[in-house]
């Protein structure tokens, strides 16, 4: 059997190692099979997505592993076009009968709707810039490797009189897209993630990292950082609510500004649900704010093509505080006569497109410099349960979590109880005083992006909780 044979080959001493992905030629074979079957079934055009994952995740709490999982799966998603109509069907079976069943389901769905007046023909062959984000050391990581790192984290927690919880995840994934006009693209990547919460009653702190290369993770450093901050967090005091100068660590910045990504979709403006409606081309944020979407940035992950196989472009979204450009799918680009930027979602969908690889311009202020320059403020480790309160003023609410510290006279002066904020993102990005270097940040509310730490004045905290 292929799976067990590969397990033996990749790690002869260790049966808990990761599954290998199919070679690209197998993905192409699946694509070709679907296209071959679809034409006689009645499809005038056919598009095929093949996605495969092999992921593992070791979860620990109370200083021990309590969950430990692995998954392997492959899906084939088929979009057909017939008589000016289109629809999608997805299966995770790759035998010809199942693929034909999905083709027929797609055609049946397509025929059930009115004709789509503005449906575009599928794109033809494209040229792609190569990106290499597959690291064999990450792909080869085993359950034992993860368990040993977790053991070290738990040992440190015990030594420090603390309780550790977190995850160590690793995996690999690949995507291929092909269509009946000859387009074909494939991409694979690895990913490794370590996240840790250190608890020292009643305080907790947190650190997390995520890279393609597991060697960049440095779990022990993350554990040390979380442990130190958890200890600092004991004896947190309640501070009055109101506006504060805040120093937002990159994870806190990420989870807030991540909510902006969809506002840069051309379709969102057309639907009048973007905060950028009537604001494009005018100064909106501070002059120190520039934002790109750039899948090719060395700290980014993700495929260099979109849901129709169009190559992703680097797009300047905000230039020194002025929203300059949007991202476009092929459909949304047509009416304003723009070029598609390679940010479309798989069709059919109602959302159009979105920039998925935001990169903020950074500065040269270290966290230490930000703290030293602050008479009175708050250092924020991370934010939690962020939700949009007002879509046009872009008011967000949420909580601070796992490490909120008072800064007084240029020093960290103790821990503070967690606050609720109600803060306009637009106003926040007008009030940025200092920027750190842009880094690959990872949080829990937004997908990974490249953002700096920020020192922001007049950040609104409205209520305080009990810890």
């Amino acid at each position, binding site marked *: 059997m292929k799976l067990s044979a590969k397990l033996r080959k990749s790690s002869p001493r260790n049966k808990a190692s990761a599954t290998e992905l199919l070679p690209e030629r197998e993905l192409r074979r699946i694509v070709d099979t679907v296209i071959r079957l679809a034409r006689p079934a009645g499809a005038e055009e056919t598009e095929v997505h093949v996605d495969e994952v092999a992921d593992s995740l070791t979860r620990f709490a109370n200083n021990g592993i309590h969950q430990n999982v692995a998954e392997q799966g492959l899906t084939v998603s088929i979009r057909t076009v017939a008589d000016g109509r289109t629809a999608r069907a997805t299966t995770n079976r790759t035998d010809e009968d199942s693929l034909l069943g999905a083709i027929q*389901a797609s055609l049946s769905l397509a025929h059930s709707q009115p004709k789509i007046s503005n449906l575009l023909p599928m794109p033809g062959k494209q040229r792609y810039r190569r990106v290499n984000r597959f690291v064999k050391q990450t792909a080869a990581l085993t359950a034992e490797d993860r368990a040993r790192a977790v053991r070290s984290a738990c040992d440190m927690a015990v030594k420090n009189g603390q309780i550790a919880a977190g995850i160590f995840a690793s995996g690999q994934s690949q995507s291929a897209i092909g269509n009946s006009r000859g387009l074909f693209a494939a991409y694979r990547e690895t990913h490794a993630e370590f996240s840790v919460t250190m608890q020292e009653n009643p305080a907790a702190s947190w650190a997390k990292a995520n890279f393609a290369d597991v060697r960049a993770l440095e779990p022990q450093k993350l554990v040390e950082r979380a442990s130190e901050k958890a200890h600092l967090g004991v004896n947190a005091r309640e501070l009055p609510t109101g506006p504060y100068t805040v120093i937002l660590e990159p994870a806190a910045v990420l989870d807030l500004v991540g909510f902006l990504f969809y506002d840069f979709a051309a379709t969102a403006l057309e639907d009048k649900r973007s905060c950028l409606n009537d604001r494009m081309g005018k100064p909106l944020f501070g002059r120190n704010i520039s934002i790109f979407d750039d899948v090719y940035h060395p700290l980014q992950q993700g495929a260099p093509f979109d849901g129709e196989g169009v190559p992703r472009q680097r797009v300047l979204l905000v230039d020194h505080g002025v929203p300059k450009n949007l991202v476009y799918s092929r459909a949304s680009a047509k009416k304003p006569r723009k070029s598609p930027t390679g940010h479309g979602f798989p069709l059919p969908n109602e959302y159009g497109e979105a920039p998925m690889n935001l990169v903020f311009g950074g500065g040269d202020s270290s966290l230490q410099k930000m703290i030293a320059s602050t008479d009175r403020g708050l250092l924020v480790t991370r934010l939690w349960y962020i939700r949009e309160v007002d879509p046009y003023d872009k008011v967000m609410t949420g909580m601070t979590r796992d490490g909120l510290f008072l800064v007084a006279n240029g020093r960290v002066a103790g821990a503070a109880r967690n606050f609720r904020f109600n803060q306009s993102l637009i106003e926040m990005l007008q009030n940025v005083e200092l920027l750190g270097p842009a880094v690959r940040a990872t949080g829990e509310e937004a997908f990974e992006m490249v953002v700096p730490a920020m020192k922001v004045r007049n950040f609104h905290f409205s209520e305080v909780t009990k810890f």
Partner: protein
Amino acid sequence: MWDLCTNALDTAQLRGASYCDARVMHLRQRDLTTKNGQVGTLSQSESIGIGIRVLANGAWGFASTDRLTREGVASCAAQAVSIAKASALAKRGDVVLAPEESYIDSWQSPFRKDPFEIPLERQLALLLAADDAMRRVKGITLTETDMQFRKIDSWFASSIGSCIHQRKVISGCGIAATSFQEEEIQKRSYPNSFGGQHSLQGYELIESLDLLRNAPIIAEEAAALHSASQCPEKTGTLILGASQLGLQIHESIGHPIELDRVLGQEANFAGTSFLTLDQLNRLQYASSIVNVVADARLDHGPGLGTFAYDDEGVPAQCTDIIKDGQFRGYLSNRETAHLVGLNRSSGTMRTESWNRLPIIRMTNVSLLPGSWDFADLIADTSDGILMETNRSWSIDDRRYQFQFSTEIGWEIKGGKKVRMLKNPSYSGITTEFWNSCDAICKLAHWTLWGTPNCGKGQPMQTMGTGHGASPARFRNVRIGTAFSNQ
């Protein structure tokens, strides 16, 4: 399917598992949406695979695969055992499971009309008609509708001898009208926001919602909100509509009672809980008129948390959570039940799919009906605000401090709804809020709402939960904070 399960159990036990269960799941889903009079998403998917959970060397391992051959399943089972042995390298103690009977059973959720058998043209025609009815209202700039149907088959077998097949049919539907005017976006949704109502029913759910009658009503309200007064900032009386109260229950009762959170197992992600073990049977969680249950039985209704057995083979149960205001129970599983003095799991282990590990989840966590007629409740309120249909929700990671905003509010003066309010919001501390409840409406106003999008676990799983609620009144609530700085 049973052969695949047997193969998995045999292999796992041969490799050293002291306990194992295997679950083959076949999931089918159909999604339909429209936007501004055009079809948006039109898709169908199916997925089948097996998840194998084992105990070996006193620790857990889980592996899943869609390679449903004899060799593929055996390899997956062997991988699960290897992972469990790796877990044992950093275990804190041996896992001990509460005893449970074995069951051989087959169950199907009741439905009258299979949504997958209803012609797509009919489904789309209804959505497009509702979309059209909303677009006819002046000032509406965006209209959206959606339907979602799922059929889930699961074949569960365990090494204690259980073989349980369950089939669930789930339907959901919602419509929304949005209006952008003069630097303000206002939105109204029906019958609930973020996808509408979802339940363990067939197409009869969709037919019961009367979309076409409600479409112009919500569109008119969305447009009218622009000229409504801003919800004031004050401390006062709040009446919550049933769907908003359902979400309030979800966030401030449902999550804190999950025993895995209480025990720190979610500390890194979903958070912990203020309901530490010493609070059980001691905490005055709410006022004495408040009674909350976690009820997965069909008797409770066709909720998203209704089933015959949970995903570790424990029969559906009803657990008192809050009885006459007192905190009485947690959501537990076979591993954690003994920690709260129970000799049996409360049956709340649930999984999103074959490739996810079952974890403790809400079932139907519901506020039992009170005695008030809704009209009488309004008439009895001299000065208050009625808030309906969720717009945003947020709560801290121990579930103390929350803030919600809703799509629409109504000022109540002298026992009457006197005017519409825009941008309503309220906030508070969980136990203070529930202890301020002084009126709950009766069964005639009670709905078992479905929350289809509850995220928890790493890797993340999305689960549907049920929340029965009728409108209720709360005193001395902080109102209007979300917009106080704007």
